[in-house]
């Protein structure tokens, strides 16, 4: 019982350490002109909509957020590793870990600003829920050259492999800060 909470609290501490060291890393990076890499920290809102009866939903109702790492190899690809914890009503009572591979529709040129992304990935919950994920982000502003990317109105379709049912996922706002 206590071991489970200890693991959860260590995860929370790890996430916050990453968030808190980001400004310090920024301060060093800004010493040079264009120090942004293709690696970034990503944060977003995350809303799950269960289709059908809510009591069957693999995702308990609550406030969730998504935080993780993004890597942009090449001109189109994006690879993300992230976690989606529940914040309310009970902090970290459910956590999903996931990964995705995205494709930026327009080629990422130097200083290109507008784009759109399609992604495929998976989510794995602490209660062993397994979800496949397809997402589309119609509006992306920014790229590593700007040191940030803002993604708006991401809509995802989740497939629960155990219960054989579909859910919706909505990420109204996501921000990636490139290191």
């Amino acid at each position, binding site marked *: 019982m206590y071991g489970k909470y200890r693991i959860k609290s260590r995860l929370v501490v790890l996430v916050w350490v990453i968030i808190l060291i980001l400004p310090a890393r920024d301060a060093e990076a800004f010493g040079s002109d264009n120090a942004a890499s293709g690696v970034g920290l990503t944060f977003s809102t995350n809303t799950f909509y*269960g289709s059908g009866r809510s009591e069957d939903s693999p995702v*308990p109702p*609550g406030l969730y957020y998504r935080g993780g790492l993004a890597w942009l190899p090449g001109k189109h690809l994006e690879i993300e590793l992230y976690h989606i914890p529940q914040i*309310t*009503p009970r902090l970290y009572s459910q956590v999903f870990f996931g990964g995705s591979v995205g494709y930026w529709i327009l080629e990422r040129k130097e200083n290109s600003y507008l784009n759109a992304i399609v992604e495929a990935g998976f989510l794995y919950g602490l209660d062993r829920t397994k979800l496949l994920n397809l997402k589309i982000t119609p509006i992306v502003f920014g790229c590593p050259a700007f040191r*940030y990317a803002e993604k708006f109105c991401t809509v995802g379709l989740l497939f629960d492999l155990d219960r054989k049912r579909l859910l919706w996922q909505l990420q109204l706002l996501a921000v990636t800060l490139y290191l």
Partner: protein
Amino acid sequence: MRRIPVILLLLLCLFFPADETCALGAEKPWFGGLYTGFCGFSEQTGPPAGEYLTAGLFAEPLNIPVLNPAFLCGVLIPLSPANTGGMRVQVAAELTIVDLPVSFLKNRFYITSCFSPGVGAQYLFALDYSTSAFSVLIAPLRIRVGDGVFTVGSVELFLAEGTGARGWGFTLFKAALFLF
């Protein structure tokens, strides 16, 4: 002892004059605008478990570098699950403790940014006034950039009459954009 807060306030005014600290510029032509955000509540607070969209109008009538007040009025709308029983009217007052310029963020956002932690209080009530709640708010991660104030991870402590704390709430992200 009562003089200490006044002295602290005067010192803060001295060290952070308005024209240097305010990200909106020396004139600060704005009075108010729209705000929107995402929040949720712990089990004991009353509203059903879920994710809530908060949206409404705000006014920041004064242009002072410390203890700058803002007033908000809006609604909480349950997003997931979409349950109209969870709708609440929100009336709140917030106090920006101080606007501290953050120079290294200029390389990220290209304009002057200020670290603007805040505190506040809010009153939530159901549309039919069948239930209500009062909470105090702490917003340590608040940044004023351009014509907006962005809050990440603010915590609300809900108070119950006589028994102290009743539960807590969490605002994941809130954007207040000046429009008028």
